[in-house]
């Protein structure tokens, strides 16, 4: 754009200078004389210069404009490129510095914790034992309470005595005993059946003999009623 303007300015300047030069060389210009031809000697006109630069065509103007745009574009792209490069490098360096700072902090705290590693070890020793205690206790129940419970139920029926009681790990139980008669066994069976601490009860065998009757029950107790405190 500037080039175009400059060229046009030059043409104008030369055109302005043209007339006074002609006047000084040829005295008073006559309309017959007109513009001097290239063949004619120009005298002072030569020294001042003749405007031979043609004005830019439309196509040339477009080319010049494109060129200028490209030049500015190149400049801008270089600036952008440099800015991006600086930004990325800066971002990278800042991140790395932050990381280094964090790592040094971490290392300082690690050292501090490591000085107390014995305490941590002792704490863990106790904790593993607590865990084991809880695991064992979680599924354990009081055998004493179960036997006392079964005796308590049998105490409600006269003449009942147990011969054996077997309590398994899954809280199933087997009990056998003697009774004066079958009626007492059925009463005992009923009491077991309605008791909330018993999940289920079966009369496995019953027999009548000279001394009375014998029985054996099988059943399952409810864990919640007998779990260890």
């Amino acid at each position, binding site marked *: 754009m500037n080039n175009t303007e400059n060229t046009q300015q030059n043409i104008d300047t030369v055109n302005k200078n043209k007339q006074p030069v002609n006047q000084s060389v040829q005295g008073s210009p006559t309309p017959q004389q007109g513009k001097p031809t290239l063949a004619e*000697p*120009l*005298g002072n006109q*030569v020294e001042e*210069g*003749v405007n*031979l*630069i043609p004005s830019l065509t439309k196509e*040339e103007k477009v*080319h*010049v404009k494109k*060129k200028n745009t*490209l*030049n500015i574009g*190149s400049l801008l*792209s*270089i600036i952008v*490129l440099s800015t*991006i*490069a600086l930004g*990325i490098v800066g*971002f*990278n360096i800042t*991140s*790395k510095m*932050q*990381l280094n700072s*964090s*790592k040094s902090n*971490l290392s300082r*705290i*690690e050292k*501090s*914790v490591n000085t*107390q*590693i014995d*305490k*941590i070890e*002792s*704490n863990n*020793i*106790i*904790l593993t*034992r*607590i865990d*084991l*205690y*809880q695991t*064992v206790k979680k599924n*354990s129940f*009081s*055998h004493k309470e179960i*036997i*006392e419970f079964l005796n308590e139920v049998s105490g409600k029926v006269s003449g009942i005595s147990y*011969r*054996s009681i*077997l*309590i398994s*790990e899954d809280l199933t139980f087997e009990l056998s005993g003697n009774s004066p008669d079958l009626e007492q066994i059925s009463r005992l069976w009923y009491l077991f059946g309605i008791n909330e601490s018993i999940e289920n009860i079966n009369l496995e065998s019953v027999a009548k003999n000279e001394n009375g009757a014998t029985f054996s029950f099988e059943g399952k107790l409810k864990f919640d009623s007998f779990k*260890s405190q």
Partner: protein
Amino acid sequence: MGLITTKASKKREEELAQIAEKSKKGKLGFGDLIIPIASGTLFIILSFAVFVPMVKSAFEYLDEIKVTKEKIEQLEKVNKEVAKLDEDQLNEDVVTARKVIPKKLLVSDLVSYLNELATSLELSISELSSGDALNAVSGPIGYSGAYDNVIKFLDDAQNVSPYMLRLQNVEISAVQTEVGEVWNISLDISGYYIAEEDEEPSIYAPFKSYMEYEDIIQVFKDKAKSLD
């Protein structure tokens, strides 16, 4: 005059050359595209060779910073919790806990304890065998004696014993003898121990203070007292 003509023609030639050059300059040539093309190419090359890896590594740094910060937070928490533990009390509690659940429970120790308990309750031995299993000493045992003593034996073994014991498949049965009614008890008993590893604990492992389980520590203390 001839000199002037030569000068003029020379000037004119120069001017014509200038015009030709100017008209050439006005046109878009390859030279005009060198800088944009070069900068574009450089940008693409730099992007793949430098920028992308740099940005990638910067994001990796950020992730690492995040992880590091989390570790710092965790360790600060651990540091604070550990600082709360009184060293003397801790050592005392370790000794107590190791008495109840030792590093290694010897079969002889368990048998000796059970025999002592049975003798104190006037129970006579009918069966006793035990062997070493995984982190436990276990085996079937049998005693006989008065009903009350049999029940007390069960209770003591389960709740008062200095060791961590588990009773399974308990069976009591009454037998009529010349002396009177005698109750037999047979059961499987397991005494636990914890084999400790020699390696140091990781400082990054989740930390929980044992002081949160004061009730269990008290149980350990009560059990350990019976050993002294």
